[in-house]
């Protein structure tokens, strides 16, 4: 899958990406390694993630 084909409006749990909650968290851990950051454990309490943009926003907010 070409990352360029994935828009920020793409559903995380949809026909294309099919990400579930455990896969989502595993992806975050890999992002930590890629970006050399440590995300706070309470970052996801009481939050829901629907699209790629939701994920981008929360990660960008932590590394800025």
């Amino acid at each position, binding site marked *: 899958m070409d990352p360029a084909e994935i828009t920020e409006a793409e559903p995380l749990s949809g026909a294309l990406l099919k990400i579930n909650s455990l896969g989502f*968290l595993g992806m975050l851990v890999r992002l930590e390694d890629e970006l050399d950051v440590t995300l*706070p*454990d309470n970052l996801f*309490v009481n939050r829901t993630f629907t699209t790629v943009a939701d994920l981008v926003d929360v990660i960008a907010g932590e590394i800025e």
Partner: protein
Amino acid sequence: MNVTAWRSVLPHLGYDLPPDLSPPGASGPITAQLPLELVRQSVSRREWWPIPEPVAELYRQYRPTPLWRATRFEAEVGARVPIYVKYEGGNLSGSHKLTTRAGPGALLQASGRT
């Protein structure tokens, strides 16, 4: 003996775990109920993880408990990782459940969940 770290078997597997798959037709928003630290320990290839102090304090109340390496069992099943057997019937609850749930419980509490 004070135990200060958990040891992960993942670096010994020699392969990556397969991706977690959603059931067919699954959709909708994703919520993250597990603390990231627990996920780190479940997917990373790092071998040693420091034990949170509240868990270490709990362990000190009833440990050490008998532990031995099951070398003959390892040979019988062709194990690629060392297999240890630990008797947990002498702890506070008389069950392994206290030991296996104390760690995740502490990580959940540290992540703001109650």
